[in-house]
């Protein structure tokens, strides 16, 4: 009986290997979404997507993927990208097809997915995880594929690569701008001298992405003392050691890159230890969304964050209202991550349209790069923050503001600030 099971197992193994070889060889060229009935398109633009639908940061990233593909499918449902073709002189339509892979925020998997998709000649590639972007930033340039990097490690931004566009805020720039705001806040309250600052963040590539020499150099140039770096395991449940150490070091402000569950823990621990007035803990925009005040409804109140878009409740801004309706139609949670992603996807599509209206179909990666660099780009979230790229800096998000959690939303409490540029000078 056991030998029959073994034979069966080996047969299954051989069959599995055979299926693998066939599947690898015959992987589909793209997930084409249909046009509306009666609409005829003159071609298709292929977009590749690396996303972590499962894995340690999937809580955020799944919404990114759903919002992104939702926008693409909505465009296709209306007939695709509608533009005036300079070659035919008529109004034409081009569909958008996308091919994706789940990289589980793993560099090797991200690279493997890219190698599979690149053989189908995509025009644009969305790299939605830090791990993938780290691997792909150079390859986009080598393979002449326009890369929109939502995960934005420094390698995607510096030195400027012709085909790479970091679409997410630079975390180092965010951190440096936050330090600048902390100095203003400290001095506005009448405190003498300069505040003491610390990095307080969760461990891992994303959590530690702000801890770069550029930020430390900027802090030093302002005369701000950095007391230390406190990095905790994302699975931690007790942060009393870290908080007590920071109090002992005289820390006034901290900054860290968090996702909502970890920042909710920070808020709760700070409240539990009675240290809410002693240290101002500041996060980046990845934590400032609905999940945070769902997980820590009381502890998160008054907490500060550096954000690069208005809150989804600011429906007085027409663009925000439009995205809220879009996310509701897609049956997705109405939150900052979805709005942010939908906005950047529309910016990419708008640039494709501009390139099509300039050159006609088909467009090349160089045509898309020129459209992105030439601008003006779609102002996805209203007049602020401004979105632009130049040949000298492909960064698409350059403005941020400080916000405070108030109820089930955040409120902007500062002016919109141009982000400090922390790129190395050589």
């Amino acid at each position: 009986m056991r030998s029959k099971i073994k034979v069966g197992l080996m047969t299954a193994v051989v069959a599995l290997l055979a299926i693998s070889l066939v599947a690898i060889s015959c992987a589909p060229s793209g997930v084409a979404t249909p046009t509306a009935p009666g609409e005829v398109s003159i071609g298709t633009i292929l977009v590749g997507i690396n996303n972590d639908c499962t894995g340690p940061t999937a809580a955020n990233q799944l919404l990114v993927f759903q919002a992104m593909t939702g926008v693409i499918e909505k465009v296709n449902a209306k007939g695709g990208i509608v533009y005036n073709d300079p070659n035919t002189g008529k109004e034409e339509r081009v569909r958008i097809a996308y091919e994706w892979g789940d990289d589980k925020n793993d560099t090797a998997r991200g690279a493997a997915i890219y190698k599979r998709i690149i053989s189908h000649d995509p025009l644009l590639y969305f790299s939605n995880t830090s791990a993938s972007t780290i691997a792909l930033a150079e390859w986009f340039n080598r393979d002449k594929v326009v890369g929109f990097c939502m995960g934005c490690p420094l390698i995607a931004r510096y030195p400027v690569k012709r085909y790479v566009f970091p679409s997410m805020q630079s975390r180092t720039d965010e951190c440096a701008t936050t330090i600048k705001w902390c100095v203003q806040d400290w001095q506005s309250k009448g405190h003498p001298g300069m505040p003491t600052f610390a990095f307080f963040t969760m461990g891992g590539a994303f959590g530690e992405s702000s801890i770069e020499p550029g930020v430390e150099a900027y802090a030093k140039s302002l005369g701000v003392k950095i007391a230390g770096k406190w990095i905790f395991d994302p699975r931690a449940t007790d942060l009393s050691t870290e908080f007590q150490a920071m109090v002992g070091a005289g820390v006034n402000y901290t900054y860290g890159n968090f996702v909502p569950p970890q920042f909710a823990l920070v808020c709760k621990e700070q409240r539990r230890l009675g240290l809410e007035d002693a240290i101002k803990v500041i996060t980046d925009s990845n934590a400032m969304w609905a999940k945070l005040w769902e997980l820590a409804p009381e502890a998160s109140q008054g907490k500060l964050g550096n954000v690069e878009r208005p809150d989804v409740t600011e429906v007085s801004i027409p663009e925000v209202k439009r995205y809220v309706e879009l996310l509701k139609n897609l049956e997705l949670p109405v939150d900052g991550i979805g709005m942010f992603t939908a906005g950047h996807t529309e910016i990419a599509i708008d640039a494709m349209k501009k390139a099509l209206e300039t050159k006609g179909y088909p467009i090349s990666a160089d045509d898309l790069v020129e459209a992105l660099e030439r601008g003006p780009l779609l102002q996805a979230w209203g007049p602020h923050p401004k979105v632009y790229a130049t040949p000298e800096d492909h960064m698409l998000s350059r403005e941020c503001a400080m916000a405070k959690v108030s109820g089930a939303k955040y409120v902007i409490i500062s002016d919109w600030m141009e982000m400090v540029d922390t790129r190395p000078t050589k």
Partner: protein
Amino acid sequence: MLPCGTRSFHYEEDIAIVRTRAQWGMLIAFLIILFTLPLYGNVYILSILSMAAIVLIAVQGLNLLTGYCGQLSVGQAAFVGVGAYITAILTTRFGVPWLAALISAGLGAGLVGIIFGLPALKIKGFYLAMTTLAAQFILDWCFLHLREWTGGVSGLGVDNASIGGIVFASEQSKYYLIMIITFVMVFFAKNIARTRVGRAFVAIKDNDLAANVMGINLRFYKLLAFFLCCGFAGVAGSLLAQYMNLVNPAQFSLGDSILYLGMLVVGGMGSITGGIFGTVFFQLLSTLTLVLSPLLYAVFPGLGMVASSAMTVFFYAIIIMLFLIFEPRGINHVWLAFKGSYRLYPFAYQ
């Protein structure tokens, strides 16, 4: 079991890797297919094989330590990282030629392996596994926090390998480079296994006390096993660095170390062929899961994106569990049984 009619008249014939003309023919045909693949295979297929070959080197190193010498290690990925970072630092910061960096990566990782292998002289089994686990965490911390050398979270960019003016920039050229080095390393591992050193390793695995009594220097051979294992890992890391044009701490996680062990278990510990089977099987399985998620979602949109992605991981884990339950000796054992049966045909029996 040798093919029917094959006999050895000399010791050299007895220990030869390739014995018969048929085996030579198959080997040559395999090599021809392997090395002509870039002419007709696409970039994706070449990338799968290149990564499999790199992983194979690391797994064979682990095979020498764990499969042959019986010393459990759960830190192999960290030693791959050591080799990768040595290559990156030497080539980008000091302008060392790539080939010299490759050799240095192997030697450097081997020396680091000796340091973490010192506890093996006193402890074994579970306790040794904990020590190598500590190596994984310590080296991980070093990769992340020795920013001046490793680049921290961002990692280090690595130029393409070049040897004698030839730059290996395209997927095809990298494939050839990786395949040649993999072939050499696997041949080296096979030779270690079938000579005095390999026999000493096996004796230590079977009963280290008896091996010591017989005159085998336990200290020397255990440390040699660690040196060879980590040396292989270092070479794999060097190849990985030039292939990805990047080294980054996220590439060398505990999950990867456990995966290498898994490859060894599924393929069959204690044989070079088993390492090959396990690596190829896992790489194909991993690639299948990558392809399967979008396919599942396209065919069953109601399943949802998360479910279709997560099911592939579930599928992966089930395969490993089935192997551990029903064939703990690995694919190699089944292959040997199959080979024996067809060589005995028509007298095969169960």
